[in-house]
C-alpha cells in the first residue's frame, strides 16, 4: 500500500495523544512554532503533560495556552521567564508549586534531544560545569575539561512546524523555522508536522531537511 502520511486535520493527527505524554514543541526566536497543533492539542485536552520546549513563555508560541489550561505538569526548557515585570501565567504556577520546571542550557537542551533520537543515552559536556544547573550531576574531567554528565531526552510526541511536506513525510523548512525541528522529530515515538503545504509529489532529495523516516503524520495548515 502506498505510503501517505498526510492527514486531514490537526485533530485527526493528535487523536491518540494520552495523558502524561512527553511532548516536544518546536520554535525559537519567533520562527517555527507549531501553533495549529498546539491549539488542537489544547482542545484534545490530555492531562499531566511534560513539555519539552525551548521557552515556556515565548509570546508567539501557544505553549502558554496549554500551560494556562492546566494541562501541564512539568516543562523542560531553557527559558521560563515571562517578558515584563508582571509574572506570566507560567511564572505564577511555578511560584505556587503547581508546575515543575527543569531549566537546561539551550545547547544542552538541543543535544539531549538529539541524543534521544540518536540512541545515545548520555554524554559528557563542559557546559554547565560549576553552575547551579549542574547541581547533583555527575562530573568528570576528560581531556583536561571539567564536564557534566547529561542524559538523553526522549518523548511520546513531537509537534513540528515546517514549510513543505510530501506524502512520505519528508520536511523542508523556511529559513530559521528549522531550529529544533530535526532533533525533536527524531526523539519522539510519534512525530506530527504542521506545514504550509503538503504535496503529493516528493520534495526533491536535496531540499529534504528531515527525512520522512522520522515523521509519522503531516497536516497542511497554510499560513
Amino acid at each position, binding site marked *: 500500500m502506498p505510503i501517505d502520511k498526510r492527514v486531514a486535520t490537526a485533530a485527526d493527527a493528535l487523536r491518540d495523544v494520552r495523558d502524561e505524554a512527553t511532548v516536544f514543541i518546536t520554535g*525559537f*526566536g*519567533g*520562527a*517555527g512554532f507549531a501553533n495549529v497543533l498546539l491549539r488542537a492539542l489544547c482542545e484534545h485536552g490530555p492531562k499531566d503533560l511534560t513539555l519539552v520546549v*525551548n521557552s*515556556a*513563555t*515565548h509570546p*508567539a508560541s501557544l505553549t502558554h495556552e496549554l500551560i494556562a489550561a492546566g494541562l501541564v505538569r512539568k516543562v523542560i526548557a*531553557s*527559558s*521560563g*521567564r*515571562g517578558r515584563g515585570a508582571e*509574572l*506570566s501565567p*507560567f*511564572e505564577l504556577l*511555578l*511560584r505556587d508549586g503547581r508546575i515543575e*520546571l527543569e*531549566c*537546561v*542550557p*539551550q*545547547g*544542552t537542551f*538541543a*543535544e539531549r*534531544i*538529539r541524543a534521544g533520537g540518536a540512541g545515545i543515552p548520555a554524554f559528557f*559536556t*563542559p*557546559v*554547565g*560545569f*560549576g*553552575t*547551579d*544547573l549542574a547541581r547533583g550531576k555527575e562530573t568528570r574531567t576528560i581531556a583536561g575539561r*571539567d564536564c557534566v554528565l547529561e542524559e538523553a531526552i526522549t518523548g511520546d510526541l513531537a509537534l513540528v512546524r515546517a*514549510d513543505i511536506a510530501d506524502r512520505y513525510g519528508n520536511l523542508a*523548512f*523556511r*529559513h*530559521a*523555522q*528549522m*531550529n*529544533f*525541528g*530535526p*532533533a525533536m522529530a527524531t526523539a519522539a515515538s510519534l512525530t506530527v508536522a504542521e506545514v504550509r503545504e503538503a504535496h503529493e509529489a516528493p520534495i526533491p532529495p536535496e531540499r529534504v*531537511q528531515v527525512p520522512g523516516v522520522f515523521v509519522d503524520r503531516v497536516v497542511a495548515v497554510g499560513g
Partner: protein
Amino acid sequence: MPQPLNRDQMAWRAAQDIADGMVVNLGIGIPVLASDHLPAGRDVFFQSENGVIGVGPAAAPDGIEPDLVDAGSRKVTLRPGGSIIDSAWSFAMIRGGHIDVTILGAFEVAANGDLANWDARVPDKGPLVGGAMDLAVGAKATWVIMEHTTRDGRPRLLEACTLPLTAVRCVQRVYTDLAVIDVTADGFIARELLAGMSLEALRARTGAAITPAPGCRPLVAPALGHGG
C-alpha cells in the same frame, strides 16, 4: 569625572577588536549593537544560536521575511555566503569551539574569569538561561560588555561573583563604560581607561584588584547613539 561611554559607544569599542574573518556571536542587549559599529571593510560572520550563520542587518520594514529571525526574535537578513542550520548543529558549532568570539552582557565578572549573566535573582521571575552557558564555555574567546557598576553604584567586577554563575573561568576581556579590561592569570588588567579618569577613580568602582597594563591607553569613543 568624565562622561562614561554610552551603550553604543561600549559596543563600538568592542567591535573595533573583532578581526577580519572572525565568526562572532553577539548576545542580546548591548552586544548585538556591535554589528552596527564594525570598522569599514571588515568581513565577519555573525552567528546566531538559532542556527543563522551570517546574520545581516535588520530587515527593512518592506523586506521582512517572518521566518528569518535571530535568537533575539529580531527580523533579520542573511549576508552573502550565509546559511542556516538546525539548533543541534548550531550548538555543536558553539560548543565545539568554532565561534571565534562571543560577546555577552553580564551582571558580574570575577577576577578569575567567572561569569554571572543569567540569574539576577529577581523574586518569582522564571529562570532564563538560553544559550549563555553554551556560548561562554564553547566560544574560543568570551568578551563581556557591561556597565562598570550597578545602577546603585556597586561594582560588577569582583573577587568572586555573588550571583549564580554562567560558567567558570571563561571571560577574557570586559568592555565597560569606564575601561577595557583583560582578565588574566594575574587578575584584572586595565588596557584602556576612560579619557580623563584617574586610576584611583576606577579602583574605587572595581570590586577586586585592578592593575594598569604597561602602556595603558585612554579609552575614547566617537559620538554615537543617544549619548552622542
